[in-house]
């Protein structure tokens, strides 16, 4: 039996926390649920999920639709596209069976790469390896989740770069419906015509739009600021996500940038470190640019954004003495008057 291997290479960097990751998690489950009712897919499609943030790991090794169980999608710090590509290429080397005189090989693998940010490392070497040895032997479809990605860079990996406008949960639903339909048609076509290649289903251009790669695209500014904190009550890690917004400043016609809180989310610390870059967190952002202070997602303390002199972010209940869960220092906390810099994760 010839398999149709499908890889999902997911950007699980911190900016994905909150709605995007929940929607992707649900989306993958929906894809599987749908494929389980399609006889072609059920007998042909094999799926693997690879996550990349600062580091990359295989979340679900290649397996058939029958055995597939929706995994928990992790979150990490950093966006190392090169590590993700390396993990993918190693997985293809390991999994995909080549046709020989003695053995019938798999169909060309299909890769869906979902990313929502700009690589935080140098991707040159991985891109070259991909283009030299893998591009011709697989079908890569790149989906930019939102417009905060480097389209020029992504366009060097594949001719199929699509922009997904992740405006609300409905658009996510429609998007994953489109992915599912594309997988179904592809598996049906290779079964009936023996022709390799991906058949992307028609999509609603408001949701999924094909990027014109002949044009040069400008590099976007960062849309999100994500800070990692620790609960001072039970030591559990969480992430605080802020979204960029602009407002009229005192100078007419000149806008100031600020970041408005989107939410505070609990994370699984073990998997967070497994997917995070080793490099020290060095990006700084001024607290003056941050608007809003949500309550702690772990213990419910009133403020999740308090900073210790050690630089660590943790939660506090209000003014007064509190112990920092990062360094163990006890200090008095009040509202800051001037702006101070807060460590920012790699995104």
């Amino acid at each position, binding site marked *: *039996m010839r398999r149709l291997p499908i890889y999902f290479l997911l950007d699980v960097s911190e900016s994905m926390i909150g709605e995007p990751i929940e929607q992707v998690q649900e989306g993958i489950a929906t894809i599987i649920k749908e494929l389980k009712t399609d006889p*072609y897919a059920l007998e042909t499609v094999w799926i693997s999920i690879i996550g990349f943030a600062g580091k990359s790991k295989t979340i679900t090794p290649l397996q058939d639709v029958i055995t597939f169980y929706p995994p*928990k999608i992790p979150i990490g710090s950093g966006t190392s596209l090169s590590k993700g590509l390396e993990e993918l290429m190693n997985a293809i080397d390991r999994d995909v069976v080549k046709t020989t005189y003695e053995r019938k090989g798999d169909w060309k693998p299909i890769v869906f790469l979902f990313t929502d940010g700009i690589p935080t490392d140098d991707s040159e070497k991985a891109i070259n390896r991909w283009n030299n040895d893998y591009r011709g032997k697989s079908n890569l479809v790149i989906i930019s989740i939102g417009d905060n990605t480097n389209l020029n860079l992504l366009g060097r990996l594949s001719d199929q770069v699509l922009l997904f406008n992740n405006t609300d949960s409905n658009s996510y639903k429609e998007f994953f419906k489109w992915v599912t339909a594309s997988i179904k048609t592809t598996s049906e076509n290779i079964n009936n015509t*023996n022709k390799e290649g991906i058949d992307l289903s028609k999509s609603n251009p408001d949701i999924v739009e094909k990027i014109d790669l002949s044009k040069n695209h400008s590099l976007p500014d960062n849309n999100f600021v994500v800070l990692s904190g620790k609960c001072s009550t039970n030591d559990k890690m969480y992430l605080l996500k802020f979204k960029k917004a602009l407002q009229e400043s005192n100078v007419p016609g000149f806008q100031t940038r600020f970041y408005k809180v989107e939410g505070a989310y609990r994370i699984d610390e073990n998997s967070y470190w497994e997917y995070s870059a080793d490099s020290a967190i060095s990006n700084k952002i001024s607290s003056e640019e941050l608007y809003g202070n949500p309550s702690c997602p772990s213990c419910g303390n009133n403020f999740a954004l308090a900073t210790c002199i050690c630089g660590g972010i943790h939660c506090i209940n209000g003014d007064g003495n509190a112990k920092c869960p990062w360094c163990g220092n006890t200090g008095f906390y009040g509202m800051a008057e001037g702006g101070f810099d807060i460590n920012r994760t790699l995104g």
Partner: protein
Amino acid sequence: MNKDKEEFREEQISIPNANVKKEYQFCFDSSLFPKIQINDIKNLDLVGLQFDAEKACISGVPTNASQIDIEIEFFHKEDENFEIDIKKIPFIVNADPKDLWMNKPSPTDSRFPKEENVTFSSSFLDKKIVVASKRGRSHAHEGTFRDDDFVVKSLPDDWNVVAVADGAGSAKFARAGSKFVTENIAESFNNETFLQNLSSEIISYFDGNNSEDAKIKSKAFVINSLYKNVKQLNEALNQFADSEEINLKDLHTTLIFVLVKKFDFGYVVLSFGVGDCPINVIDENEESVKLLNFLDVGEFSGGTRFITMSDIFSRPDMADRFGINCFKDFSKLFLMTDGIYDPKFVVESKLENLESWKNFLKDLDGKNEDQIKVDFAEDQNIENQLSDWMDFWSKGNHDDRTLAVIY
């Protein structure tokens, strides 16, 4: 206490998927959360399963395919109030792939209609032949036609011909292509004078007393004669496409055929093949197997050639497509489409492997999942037996199936 409960609630528990109508059992590993007791699991009844709290096991035979959320009710073992919490996780019951395939009739009012399943049996020289051709699951699922076809015909001068063709899945009217080529090639040999000449050249070719030169001349005559008929078939296809106002590529089809006659010195089998369908002969003691044609499997998987492509005639391997073989006797001669060869032999190399053929013969003899036997000895009902045998289930193989056996 809260911490233990919290951890259990957040723990990612993957429960293996169940399969509909198949016995299922899964037991939670309680050593992973020693302080938690699972009280009950709600919603399992939706798919016909039960939960045994004492053993912490889910078991039963799922009645229907579905993806549901099950609610695990649990409490802390040290909690005197047995305060119950709920953890929701997905639970999947897979459908039986066989249940997902539909069987829609093909539309008889469309162009070039074709019967979905055909069987045939008759005598063949001093032997017999049985053939079955079946519409594949993928065609049945979509209500489209069988693209395979075959023709068996007795010819003058005691020759017989069998032709089998597999229309390309990507070609719109492949069903018409395969029908046209099998009928046309068989009919093209229906010429007494030609066949008498052919017979005398064959005798000359296999006459041990003849000079090499004479043999080469006879061989050239035989191959050229077959070539001419194949070439005229390609031209006839062009005309057929023109007259039907369709593109030639819409008729893409493979073709294999054998012309067989029994001489004093044995059975002479003249063969031709283009595409990926094999012709095999098993000797009378079933101790050796011979593949009479080469398969066009292409550089990349799925690539094949068709009789509808005129470029096959200009390629250097054209002469190798023809075979002249003589067998003192043989047990069986097979012609098949890839709908049989793919699931039963998988790769080309296995077609020349005696072990694979022995297994295939055992399979025909009833050593298969459904225990369906094709009885070549007591063969009153052999057409239907072969047809039933051809319903074998093979994951991922849903092509049309055609198998012809001379025995």
